[in-house]
């Protein structure tokens, strides 16, 4: 599993499956087919062991305490920052802020950047396909500042309507936020092109990369955006940790987010001065072990190779979409396209998404049912809820077959 040795070998799930203890589980009489990867991925033993090892050896607080355990903890924490920053090609490691998750990253930017700059008449441009995490913070910040929130519409195919997007971009647009990959439709937005257009009118740009960083190579310099947010638990890492990357000049111009210990420079009763980024944005004791696990996940992915992972995933996605097309009465939100990530959100003419998920679960197949934190997007498709099957590097054709068989049971009972 070393990229250097086998640069061009396609990724086979058998290469990685032994690393995932959860895959040994059986659900009743069925093997587990875990197809809920968009919500959270499984964790390889390398990540679990990294966390375990951290706690068993140096579970001290960081901030350069002068004793061995604290030095080790600080090194582990800062080396994690460095590896994660490198993974998204950040020019400087101090541009990578540890957050709880993508949601916190977006809230931080909305609060510390946008809120301080937006005025009545200004506009923020997002899309109809947003996850709530990239919608509600902008509803709140535009309402608070008197700015206007604009939504670029979608084609019936699920693709972003670029004409509509460009028509809503103007000198008034001060902030643009968009997902690189939709967590429901699986569409990939042309973030590089859109960022260039947005910057040309003077807007600041955030990319919600929660569903892209786990699944494809991402390079913040190449995209050209100002901020990019993602979560650790969606790429084999632990819960409770995410990354917010920001260009240093912007971070440096921002006031702190939360305040307290370790983000300060000097403190008197009356007045406090603040530390430089990234410390300025990391108040209090951080999620040290989760950062260590996050970096272990990044190492694991680097070792596999993001290109190989991406290739394998779109191959399996194709198989999944072909098989789903066989099911009568099944509608997938958004049209399939060559290279579509492994996300299929569907409804059935004869059964409700929650009943579908229940039957699939009964046969060992884990999918998510609901609006997947994208209620407006579902309304756009006249749907209250869908079942969503989503893939990652360990999934197999056999697991897709298990999904299809489960949908057969649903049809047999409801159809």
């Amino acid at each position, binding site marked *: 599993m070393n990229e250097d040795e086998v640069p061009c070998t396609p990724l086979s799930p058998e290469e990685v499956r032994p690393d995932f203890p959860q895959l040994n589980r059986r659900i009743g009489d069925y093997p587990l087919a875990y197809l809920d990867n968009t919500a959270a991925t499984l964790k390889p033993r390398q990540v679990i062991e990294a966390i375990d090892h951290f706690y068993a050896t140096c579970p001290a607080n960081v901030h350069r305490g002068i004793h061995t355990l604290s030095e080790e903890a600080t090194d582990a924490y800062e080396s994690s920052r460095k590896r994660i920053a490198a993974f998204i090609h950040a020019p400087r490691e101090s541009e990578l802020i540890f957050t709880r998750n993508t949601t916190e990253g977006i809230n931080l930017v909305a609060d510390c950047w946008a809120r301080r700059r937006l005025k009545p008449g200004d506009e923020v441009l997002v899309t109809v396909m947003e996850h709530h995490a990239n919608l509600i913070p902008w509803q709140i910040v535009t309402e608070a500042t008197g700015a206007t929130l604009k939504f670029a519409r979608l084609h019936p195919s699920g693709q972003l309507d670029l004409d509509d997007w460009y028509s809503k971009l103007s000198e008034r647009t001060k902030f643009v936020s968009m997902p690189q990959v939709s967590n429901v439709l699986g569409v990939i937005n042309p973030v590089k092109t859109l960022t260039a257009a947005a910057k040309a009118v003077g807007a600041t740009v955030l990319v919600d990369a929660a569903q892209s960083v786990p699944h494809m190579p991402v390079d913040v310099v190449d995209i050209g955006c100002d901020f990019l947010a993602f979560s650790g638990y969606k790429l084999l890492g632990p819960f409770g940790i995410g990354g917010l990357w920001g260009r240093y000049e912007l971070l440096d111009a921002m006031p702190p987010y939360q305040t307290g210990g370790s983000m300060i420079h000097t403190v008197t009763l009356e007045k406090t001065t603040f530390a430089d980024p990234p410390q300025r944005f990391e108040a209090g004791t951080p999620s040290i072990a989760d950062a260590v696990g996050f970096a272990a996940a990044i190492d694991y992915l680097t070792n596999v190779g993001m290109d190989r992972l991406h290739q394998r995933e779109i191959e399996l996605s194709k198989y999944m979409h072909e098989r789903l097309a066989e099911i009568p009465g099944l509608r997938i939100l958004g049209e399939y396209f060559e290279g579509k990530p492994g996300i299929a959100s569907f409804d059935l003419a004869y059964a409700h998404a929650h009943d579908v998920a229940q*039957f699939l679960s009964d046969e060992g197949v884990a999918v998510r049912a609901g609006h997947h934190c994208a209620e407006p997007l579902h309304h756009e498709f006249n749907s209250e809820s869908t079942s969503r099957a989503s893939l990652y590097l360990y999934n197999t054709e056999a697991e897709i077959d298990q999904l299809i068989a489960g949908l057969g049971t649903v049809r047999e*009972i409801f159809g």
Partner: protein
Amino acid sequence: MDLKTLYREVIVDHYKKPRNSTPLDHPDVEAKCKNPSCGDRVTLQLRFANDNLAEIGFIGVGCAISQASTSMMTQAVKGKSREEVRQIMTAFREMVVEGAEQPDAEALGDLVTMQGIAKLPARVKCAMCGWSALEAALDEQSEEVDMDQDTSMPEAKRGGGM
């Protein structure tokens, strides 16, 4: 009863052919319940004759469990006295929400087949939607009940929408 049997023998039948699913002409009271995180909705109408629940009708949309549970409920409570209705309500809640091992079979009758729902924590809200409307109707509470914000549900069975 396993999940498939439960669906096959009880739920799908009520889901496809809901009983008492016609609005009443002159309801005494109407109540609504919804489950925004699932999209379930039930509107319930009651007519009393003296102390007896003489007529009951509902319209609903949503998952099979929510609709079947409401349909079965209407059958179980129709013609019963207010007090009997409350007994059935309590027994059903104990069985499904609190997971009582020994449900009150006498009060519940056919409804005991729904016991398996207690083991599907994410679906308890669905099963309770029609019942919460019934409770609101008995209490003459005019505001629509919202299962996602129903504090009589244990924390772990509510939760914000995903």
